[in-house]
């Protein structure tokens, strides 16, 4: 494009073009985030998110918010500081969940026939909404990291409990007690995921008795704070326009 000649001829046309850009960018952003976040999440969260018999009150609660706050933090830093758009975390989570649902529905169920009630993804939306709102209202990265990060960790388990609680009802099976989720893992044969790689109920928080979920959630929230800072800076660095020429 030559600089001497404008591409639009009227204000109305400029508005229209700007609006077209909005949708194109949002669309691209959605899928780029989806791709990056989904791959990242699969590599770090992996089995914890794939199977209900991994969704325990200890490691699942701890690990997923920590690896899940990454992209929301980075996307927030770009969208907020450059555009004052407060939906970075939500749009990231929308992307992740969309990718996950496509994957679970078409591959896990459609291709390999694992029932959807065994392989549905975890819900991150409550934490993402709170994260976005805190950044918007406070306009402070530090406060968002501390309050939002903690909230992200704390809201994860209760935000998922209505979905997974029915699967934690116990059954007696051939003389052993297990939950329905355990039974799903036993019934629906996974040749590549033997019982011993299942990372559930491991850890050292034994002194807290049976209330491990809140303790794990707090711990997860604290680590999420640190991860938030880190990824917020990643986002800033990626969102930098220092290497493009300004006109």
């Amino acid at each position, binding site marked *: *494009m030559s600089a001497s000649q404008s*591409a639009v001829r009227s204000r109305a046309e400029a508005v229209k073009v700007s609006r077209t*850009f*909005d949708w194109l*960018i*949002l669309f691209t952003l959605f*899928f*780029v985030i*989806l*791709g990056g976040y989904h*791959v990242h999440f699969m590599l770090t969260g992996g089995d914890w998110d794939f199977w209900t018999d991994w969704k*325990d*009150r200890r490691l699942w609660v701890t690990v997923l918010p920590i690896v899940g706050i990454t992209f929301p933090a980075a996307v927030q830093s770009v969208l907020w500081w450059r*555009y*004052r*758009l*407060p*939906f970075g975390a939500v749009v990231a*989570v*929308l992307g992740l*969940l969309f990718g996950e649902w*496509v994957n679970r529905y078409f591959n896990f169920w459609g291709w*390999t*026939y694992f*029932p*959807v009630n065994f392989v549905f993804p975890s*819900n991150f*939306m*409550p934490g*993402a909404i709170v994260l*976005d709102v805190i950044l918007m*209202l406070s306009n402070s990265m530090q406060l968002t990291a501390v309050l939002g990060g903690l909230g992200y960790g704390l*809201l994860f388990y*209760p935000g998922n*409990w*209505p*979905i997974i*609680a*029915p*699967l*934690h*009802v*116990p*059954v007696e*099976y051939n003389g052993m007690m297990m*939950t*329905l*989720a*355990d039974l*799903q893992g*036993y*019934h629906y044969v*996974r*040749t*590549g995921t*033997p*019982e*011993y790689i299942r990372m559930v*109920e491991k850890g050292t928080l034994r002194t807290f008795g*049976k209330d491990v979920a809140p303790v794990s959630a707090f711990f997860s929230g604290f680590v999420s704070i640190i991860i938030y800072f880190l990824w917020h800076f990643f986002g800033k660095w990626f969102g930098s326009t220092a290497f493009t020429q300004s006109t």
Partner: protein
Amino acid sequence: MKLIKDKVAKLSFVALLVSVTAAMFYTPTASAHGEKSQAAFMRMRTIHWFDLNWSKDELTVNDTMTISGKFHVFAGWPETVDKPEISFLNIGIPGPVFIRAGSWIGGQLVPRSVTLELGETYEFKVLLKARRPGDWHVHTMMNVKGGGPIIGPGKWVTISGSMANFKNPITTLTGETIDLETYNLSNTYFWHTFWYALGIAWVAYWARKPMFIPRIIAVDSGKADSLISATDRKVALAFAAGSIAIVAMSMSSTNEQYPVTTPLQAGLLRGMKPLEMPAPTVSVKVEDATYRVPGRAMQMTLTVTNNGDAPIRLGEFNTAGVRFLDAAVSKDESGYPDDLLAEEGLTVSDNSALAPGQSRTIQVTASDAAWEVYRLADLIYDPDSRFAGLLFFYDDAGGRQMVMVDAPLIPSFI
């Protein structure tokens, strides 16, 4: 302008393709056909499956079948594979075409991992319920932590009917009977749809107004604060407070609806009961063993001593699930998979009954295409070129003795 628009559009489709291919195509391992590609020494020197029986080879959806038999945990377990201290009795099928309704080692239910002892023999049984129609290769399988999956013999089983008819009723300890196939599904869809819709609503609120270009211009010119109105703040507060309230309310209503829940169960079962095997009264010494590549045959020179009180004959050599039989001594009546059965594959230089107290040196040849088909011959390229297997001796009264052999194998190329 058109140019930029095209470029952005093109870029978005590239991004879409990349992301779609990257993550969304991930599928959990659906194939169980690794048996032939698994290193030969892994199959010959770890878990020896024998006396296997697939109770059916044709069934309709909802029917059950069992795979039962024994496995011997080889005492000369290879150094390159972790010991089976944490192992899981699995089943090698392409995804959940059957459900595993039960699995037992020595009569003990084993939904958990177990510790196996080297040199011991265990009895096992797996109960399967047909779920998805098709022809499936059903393998025995043991996952060993640090060693990977060890795949045993497989047999083709045909399931007919329709998966839509599959039912998996379970009665919980709270007295409810549910179908695990569809249980909790509508609840899952409801909550995921609800939260997804709320997320879209939040983005949509901001997408109503111009987004990227006018806003970046405003931010760059120092007018960032003008972009958030008082109404925006109220809406945002409502979203956050509403989300927290919904989480709290749905959590407490869930707890009311499901007052009894337990944590996920996990653990390791130690002290599995091995099969009591009387010490064999036959002793076998391997003088030498060669594998003749052109003839697809393994030749062993064995010195057999009968310390028992009945005359015995060699009936079978079993390695990696391939059974070489001397038809004059033993026959298969279990419907063992054809490709793993060499009914006349065992030739013994002198297989007349060996009387008690006697000793004899014999030439034993185990030949069958299975050496090639199952790539057992690749053993000679393994880092530790030894073979191992089970020898079965029979007496007239139908008694059977099992003896392990384990010796170096020398290839012969002429």
